[in-house]
């Protein structure tokens, strides 16, 4: 069936609540309001207040409480309205959820899922628009997923809920209204693999989450120029599935990485570094990165558009990666 990304998230939340008594949802405005992005609309009515909890406005406290509930045997799914607000809960996520298994000698596990909206493009200015998934992807003990398609919005969330370790799921704000095919009976998939979304032989474009549709659109433009781009959806940002990336580069010999975060210290840098370490001699041209301008994301549309990676720039980077030798 056709569904939006937000409906796919909702479908996963509903399925998880139905099949596992231990699952409950918590966060700001998740109940009566149905979530700031309407991902939990109708779930309060279906599952009741005990399982869909509107919390006080206190990210560090409700994430901490979810960690406690997970330690206590529940399967909490936390919604943090945007990645910027998750910064108020960094201590709980980075210093606690991510370390407890290790520091308890394996005695304690924290099976919590923390969902958050990320990214820009909606004129909400810097404090609602950042892309900080790379920060979480830096932290051992966390798993980080960035679904970029409607089906993945469901499947990867369901997989995250099955995980015995804390999983951060980043959902790009711009994807929520996106439509796509959704199979609500699809069997479990591995969320840890990168996938080739579009096969091609001339160059590899790596993207994830909100940048995936842009990468695919850029590939379409390139196709009209006779350039056959392969698009890899990274999907899992920690741990990263490098073999899939390396295998693609071994075929195409050229690499462009799209990352809505800032270039310096970005995940895009990590991907490029890894390709350089393991496959430098497979490359026929310097790898390219398309990232956000290194400024706080502005409000004015004209500036915001200029700050964020756009299809045009991906195409341009691809042309340059093709280089004069192509």
């Amino acid at each position: 069936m056709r569904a939006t990304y937000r409906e796919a998230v909702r479908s996963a939340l509903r399925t998880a609540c139905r099949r596992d008594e231990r699952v409950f949802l918590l966060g700001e405005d998740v109940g009566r309001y149905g979530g700031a992005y309407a991902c939990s609309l109708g779930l309060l009515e279906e599952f009741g207040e005990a399982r869909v909890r509107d919390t006080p406005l206190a990210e560090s406290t409700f994430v901490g409480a979810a960690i406690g509930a997970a330690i206590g045997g529940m399967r909490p799914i936390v919604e943090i309205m945007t990645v910027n607000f998750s910064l108020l809960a960094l201590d709980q996520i980075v210093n606690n959820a991510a370390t407890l298994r290790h520091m308890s000698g394996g005695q304690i596990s924290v099976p919590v899922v923390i969902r958050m909206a990320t990214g820009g493009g909606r004129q909400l200015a810097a404090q609602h628009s950042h892309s900080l998934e790379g920060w979480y992807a830096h932290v051992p003990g966390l798993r980080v997923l960035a679904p970029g398609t409607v089906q993945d919005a469901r499947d990867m969330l369901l997989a995250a809920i099955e995980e015995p370790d804390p999983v951060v799921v980043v959902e790009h704000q711009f994807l929520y209204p996106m439509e796509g095919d959704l199979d609500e009976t699809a069997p479990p998939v591995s969320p840890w693999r990168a996938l080739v979304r579009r096969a091609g032989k001339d160059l590899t474009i790596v993207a994830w989450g909100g940048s995936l549709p842009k990468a695919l659109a850029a590939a379409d433009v390139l196709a009209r120029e006779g350039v056959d781009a392969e698009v890899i959806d990274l999907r899992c940002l920690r741990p990263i599935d490098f073999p899939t990336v390396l295998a693609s580069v071994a075929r195409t010999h050229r690499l462009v990485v799209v990352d809505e975060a800032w270039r310096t210290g970005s995940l895009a840098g990590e991907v490029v570094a890894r390709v350089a370490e393991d496959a430098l001699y497979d490359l026929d041209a310097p790898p390219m990165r398309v990232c956000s301008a290194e400024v706080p994301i502005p409000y004015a549309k004209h500036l915001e558009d200029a700050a964020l990676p756009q299809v045009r720039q991906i195409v341009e980077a691809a042309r340059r990666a093709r280089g004069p030798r192509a």
Partner: protein
Amino acid sequence: MTTVPDNDPTLGLFSVLRDDGSSDPQADPFLDDPTLLGMYREMLRIRILDERMLARQRQGRIGFYGTVTGQEATPIATAFATRPEDWIFPALRENAIMLARGFPLEKWLAQVYGNSADVLKGRQMPSHMSGRAVNQVSWGSCLGPQLPQAVGAAWAAKLKKDPVVTVGFIGDGATSEPDFHSAMTFAGVYKVPCVLICQNNHWAISVPSSRQTSSKTFAIKAHAYGVRGARVDGNDVLALYRTIKEAVEHARTTSEPTFIEAVTYRIGAHSSSDDPTRYRQESEVEAWRLRDPLVRYERYLRRAELLDDALKASMSAAIEEQIATAVRAVEPIAPPPRSSMVEDVYATVPRHLREQLAEMEAHPAPPSAHGAGH
């Protein structure tokens, strides 16, 4: 177990205005006529400005807007109760304090449009305006940080022996954030000259204030932190003026902080992206409309024979004209140039940003959407 005595001022509600338009003679600050009318004019201006701006947002001319309808009394009382050298650290609903403290409307509007006349250079959302010229700081969209900052700025004033007071604001929802508790602790421990005001408008988007605390009132929290506390009718501009003025001057002379709960109601939506019918009853809103701060104050002014239909009509017309003129002047102004984006990330533009700018300029600029709208 000891309970809080019912005569505790942090449980009661201080008000001046009565329903018939008279005032409590014990409580009335007896302000002079120009001040009384000035406060009315400023409240009316925000009411009208919000309506016009929300319409602009609906037409797609601006990206976002948050109104303060029903809550005009607290910002305006604050503007009149402070001195120009005092600092304002607003939360969501106090943006207009700066207008009432003399910030030009045109510049303020340019920020709403995020165009090249905007002193914030198109970088901040509407309703988050700030201005160094009027000592008003922008609030953090990640709620809470302005309160420890207000305390810190007050601390600076104390250390420098400046007779300056800071006024920090927070919504009822954000009192659940750690920053509120830390700020109250710090203000109490260091005795700094600040006034912290919670506008309890009963809702934090869809979450009612009963979900934020099980204390009997918000004001009562002052006790726990060793800070003076007061609870005031937030739809009564005279009660607010008197309470805030007293707290501000007390802070100025003794360096003692006060925490004030202003009990009010958000009549409009949370912001232009919200639909409140999804979570609250219209009957509740109607009940609060009867306590509209403008209507109540108007009754008082009419009874005092300071206001009549003719004056009200001419004031409204003058405000409408001022706004229309400013909008006409501001709307056609071009968006900020792309190159402006790399300014002010640091005091001087570093090399990596100059390089990134050069890369950006190597590409043709996208067709310019005039102003900031989608």
